[in-house]
């Protein structure tokens, strides 16, 4: 072999060596490219030639480092799945920004409702109310939720946008259905029952449409149209007035009955006391009579005289004023003048004024 050919051969040999080195490197890189990590708020699904590996919960890979054959053998799909998913329905609610909602501010309302802007629903008695709901759920069938529902603009990509839209549609429908079956006063006053009706409807739709989720909680809020706040406030005020009137009437009744009870008991007690006193007195009188009867029979005149003197003596002792009128010498009647208003008038006394 001449030197030129030898040089060519040597050059080709080194080139092939470099090529082999690069190809080996590429092959190793190809294998290492199969390493991937899954974050804490994610789950991963591995598609092997397009088909998910594993079934049910086993299909989902948790957080950490994993390896699978690189594309085109395997494809790794990462999905942000948290434990609890949430959708919010505002389709039947008036236009309110997120900031206003967070602050609890109610935006100004015009005289009417533009249905294209302000959402609302109709109640069973043809009235208008606003309703919104927040539904919390968790995924029961991840294969169904990830691979059977497409979200808008998510062609060829996987995620939970599709199932979220489907759940939201079910929630919107549930609010409409429940309000269409319920009168306005029941919607606004019996909120728990209305919320239960919405939850039942959502659960029914989830089951019928096989959405692959389990409803954890459904919170519903309703209110009258802002344009009618004053009218509804009047009803609330009237209800409070009614309550106050009834409370006062019951209070009057309690007081009246207590007074009557006390009065009744007092009358009976008085009657009993009087009866007992009367019985005791008559017994005493009978006893005195019996004790004195024999003495009286022996000498009635003397007994009477003795008794009278004794009685006068006792009576006179208690008399405030005693006056002895002597007999006039000429036998004429004596004039006696008495000042009967004996007690002095007390200064500022109401009793004397009476």
């Amino acid at each position: 072999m001449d030197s030129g050919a030898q040089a060519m051969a040597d050059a080709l040999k080194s080139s092939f060596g470099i090529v082999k080195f690069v190809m080996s490197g590429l092959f190793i890189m190809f294998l290492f490219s199969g390493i991937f990590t899954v974050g804490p708020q994610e789950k991963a699904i591995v598609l092997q030639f397009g088909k998910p590996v594993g079934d049910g919960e086993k299909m989902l890979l948790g957080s950490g480092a994993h390896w699978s054959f690189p594309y085109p053998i395997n494809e790794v799909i990462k999905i942000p799945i948290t434990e609890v998913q949430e959708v919010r329905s505002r389709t039947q609610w008036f236009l309110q920004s997120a900031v206003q909602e967070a602050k609890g501010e109610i935006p100004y309302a015009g005289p009417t409702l533009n249905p294209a802007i302000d959402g609302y629903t109709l109640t069973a008695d043809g009235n208008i109310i606003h309703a919104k709901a927040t539904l919390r759920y968790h995924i029961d069938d991840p294969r169904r939720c990830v691979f059977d529902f497409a979200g808008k603009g998510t062609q060829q990509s996987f995620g939970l946008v599709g199932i979220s839209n489907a759940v939201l549609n079910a929630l919107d429908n549930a609010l409409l259905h429940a309000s269409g079956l319920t009168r306005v006063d029941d919607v606004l006053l019996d909120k728990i029952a209305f919320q239960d009706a919405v939850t039942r409807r959502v659960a029914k739709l989830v089951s019928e449409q096989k959405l692959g989720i389990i409803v954890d909680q459904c919170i519903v809020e309703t209110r009258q149209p802002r344009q009618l706040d004053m009218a509804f406030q009047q009803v609330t005020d009237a209800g409070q007035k009614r309550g106050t009137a009834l409370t006062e009437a019951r209070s009057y009744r309690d007081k009246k009955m207590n007074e009557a009870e006390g009065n009744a008991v007092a009358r009976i007690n008085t009657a009993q006391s009087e009866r007992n006193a009367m019985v005791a007195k008559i017994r005493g009188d009978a006893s005195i009579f019996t004790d004195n009867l024999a003495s009286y029979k022996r000498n009635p005149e003397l007994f009477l005289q003795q008794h009278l003197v004794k009685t006068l003596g006792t009576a006179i002792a208690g008399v405030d004023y005693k006056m002895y009128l002597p007999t006039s010498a000429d036998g004429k009647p004596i004039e006696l003048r008495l000042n009967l208003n004996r007690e002095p008038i007390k200064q500022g006394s109401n009793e004397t004024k009476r």
Partner: protein
Amino acid sequence: MKKNLLTIVVSALLAAIFVLILFVFQVRQSEVAVVTRFGRPVRTQSEPGAFFRLPPGIESVYKLDQRIQSLEDPFTETLTADNNNLLTTVYVGWRISDAAAFFPKFKGGSVIDAERNLKEVVTQAKAAVVGKHPLSDFVNANPKDLKFDAIENEIKAILQEKIAANNSGIRIEYLGIKKIGLPESVTQAVFDRMTADRKKLADKLESEGLAEAQKIRSSADREAAQKISVAEGEARRIKGEGDAVAASYLPVFEQNPDLARVLLESEALETTLKERSILIFDSRTSPFNLLTGSFTNKLSK
């Protein structure tokens, strides 16, 4: 020899990869593939996996999304059977059920084109059904008279019929009413009625409250008076018992009525003269008759 073996293996691997890219295509879990040969659909593949194909130029593979797509039709106004203007929107969950029928209908199997077409059909079906029902079928306190589900099923049935007639290769998975409303001009009338209803209710609550309060008060007065009169009757009865006991002692006093009278009268005298009494007596009253002829009498003479 070893070097040759390594070269052969690596070369074989590269060749295999080249062949895979050229002659194999994948169908993912949610996809359906339509294979065309020289532009004409020849087969579809809906199961996931890897499949053989002829190289590009001879066969082309179009992958369609087989998942349930969601669409909403516009918020349109329809006259109900009882001449009420009602605005409605429905949502539809649909998917490709027959890729072979779907693909030629919509250019390149475009889902967007299919949705545009489907929206029109949905709106027509909705208008036809809403026009057959009165407003009371949409809102009604009686669950038996509420035809919400029936209306949704009717729209879905008409939609499926039209799609089947069109052979679009589409299947409707579910359909529901998403939103209803009234024209803006009608809401004012509804508000006026609601305001009048609220006023009526407020007046009713107030007057009911006053009437009930009055009833409670008058009932309380009646019951109190009854309680007192019952107690009064009982008091009389008790006093009567006392009188009866007193009467039972009458035979005792009947033994000597004169003595009984004297004892009672003297007791009355004592009781009468107990407080705030002025007693004026003369010389004839015993025991003051003892003072007759005394010093004072001598003076008066």
